[in-house]
C-alpha cells in the first residue's frame, strides 16, 4: 500500500518536472508564435474604402474681376541628413522650381455703384484692388534632381517651404505696384463696358461703404 503510494508520488513528481521542463523549453517560442499570429491577423484586416463622399464639396458665390497676374519662379532646395555615429542613415536632397502665381483684381462683393450723370457721363464707385490669390502652379514644376536614401521625400516637406515663401512673394508683388495695375485694368474694363453702352465719359471714385455688391 505504502509502496504503491510512493510509486504514484514519484510518477506525479516526474510529470510535474516534465511539465516544468516543457514549459521552460517551449513556452517562449509558443508565446512569440501567439504574438506573431495576433499581429498577422490584425494586419490582415481589410481597411475601409476611403472616398470623398464624407468630404464636403461646396459652391461659393463670387464676383471677382482678376486683372493682373504676376508669376514668380521659386527655386527650392531641401536637404536632410541623419547620422548614427559615423553611419549615414538618411540622406535626402531635392532641387526643383515651381511658379507661384499672384493674382490681383477687384472683389466686387465689396460693392460697386454706377451713377448716371448728365450728358452721357457716368460715375462709378469701385472697391480697392486686392490680392485675390497666391498659389503654386503644379503644372510648372521642374525637378532638377532628387536623392532619397533611407527615407522618401514627402509632399508636405516641400509644400511647407513653398508656403513659407508666399508672404515674401505677396509683399514683393505689392511693392511692384500690382494693386495699382490691377485697379487701372479694372477701370479700363468697366470703362469699356460703359463706353459701349453709350457713355462718353466715365469717372471713378473709391466706394465708401462696404457691403453686398452687385
Amino acid at each position, binding site marked *: 500500500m505504502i509502496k504503491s503510494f510512493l510509486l504514484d508520488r514519484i510518477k506525479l513528481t516526474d510529470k510535474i518536472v516534465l511539465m516544468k521542463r516543457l514549459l521552460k523549453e517551449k513556452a517562449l517560442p509558443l508565446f512569440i508564435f501567439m504574438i506573431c499570429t495576433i499581429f498577422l491577423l490584425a494586419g490582415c484586416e481589410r*481597411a475601409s*474604402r*476611403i*472616398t*470623398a463622399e464624407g*468630404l*464636403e*464639396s461646396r*459652391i*461659393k*458665390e*463670387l*464676383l*471677382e*474681376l*482678376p*486683372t*493682373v*497676374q*504676376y*508669376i*514668380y519662379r*521659386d527655386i*527650392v*532646395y*531641401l536637404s*536632410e541628413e*541623419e*547620422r548614427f555615429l559615423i553611419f549615414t542613415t*538618411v540622406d535626402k536632397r*531635392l532641387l*526643383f522650381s515651381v511658379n507661384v502665381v499672384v493674382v490681383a483684381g477687384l472683389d466686387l462683393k465689396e460693392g460697386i455703384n454706377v*451713377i*448716371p450723370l448728365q450728358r452721357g457721363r*457716368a460715375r462709378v464707385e469701385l472697391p480697392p484692388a486686392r490680392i485675390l*490669390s497666391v*498659389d503654386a502652379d503644379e503644372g510648372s*514644376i521642374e*525637378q532638377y534632381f*532628387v536623392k532619397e536614401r533611407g527615407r*522618401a*521625400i*514627402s*509632399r*508636405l516637406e516641400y*509644400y*511647407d*517651404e*513653398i*508656403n513659407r*515663401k508666399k508672404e*515674401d512673394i505677396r509683399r514683393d*508683388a505689392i511693392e*511692384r505696384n500690382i494693386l495699382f495695375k490691377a485697379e487701372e*485694368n479694372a477701370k479700363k474694363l468697366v470703362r469699356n463696358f460703359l463706353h*459701349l*453702352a*453709350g*457713355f462718353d465719359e466715365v469717372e471713378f471714385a473709391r466706394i465708401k461703404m462696404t457691403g453686398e455688391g*452687385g
Partner: protein
Amino acid sequence: MVPGGKITRKLLLYCIPLLIMLGIGFFILSKPLFNIDLDFSLIRREQRAVSVALLSEAREIFSFSTVEFVYNAVFPYDFLPEEERLYIVLDKAKEGVDLPPEDRLAVEIFNFCREINLNIYEKAYHFVVITALVKAGFDLEGTVYENPASLENPEEYVRINRDRRILKLKMPEPSITSFVIQDSTSSSYKYPDIPITPYNWKRLIDLVSENIIDRVEEEGILEVARRRGEKFLERFFNDAGFEKIIFVYEG
C-alpha cells in the same frame, strides 16, 4: 596592507563616482547654462531648406469670375472603381479590350501608383486629399470688352435701342476661369502625408485635373456662373439707367 593604501582606495571609491556625476551634470547643463554644444549624441540630424523667388512674368488678365466650386477628391480611390472591379478592368486592359474613358483613367492611375510605389489597397494604404478650387465666369480676354478698337463693328456686341431703355449684350459663353489645386501645409493638412517627389506630384495633378473639371462641369458650375453673371450685369446696367438687358451668347 599599508594604511595609506587603504585611504587612497577609499578616496578613489568616493572620487570616481563623484567625477562621473560631475561629468554627466556638466554634459547636461553645458548647453542651457554655458551655451556650449558638446554634441555627443549618437544620432545627428541636419536639415536645410532654401528658396529664392524672382518675378519672371507680369500679365494682364481680363476675366469675370462669378462662382467658385471647392472640390475635394481622395486620390487614388475616387478615381478607381471598387477593388474587385478594378482587377477585372486591369485584366481587360491586359487583354487589350477597348475600355470606356473612366476605366482607362483607372488603369492609368493604377499603373502610375505602382510605378511611384504608392500602395493602394495594401500595406500603407496611401492616399491624398486633393482640394481643387474651380472658378467659372466669363473670359473677356480678346473680346470687345477688353479692347473696343479690336473690332470694326462693336455694335455687334452691344446694341442700344432708340430711347436708351433696352441694352443687348453679346457675351462669351461661360467657362472655367481658374483651376487651382490648393497648396497644403503640415498645419492645414491633417491626413497622413504621402511619399512623392515634386515631379511625380505634377504628373499626379496632370492625371486628375481634367477629370475634376469634368465632374465640376457636370455639377452645373457653368450654368450657375451664367446666372450669377447675368444677375450682376443686369443690376449694373439698371443702375446705369437701362430698364431691360438682353443677353446673347457667342457661338
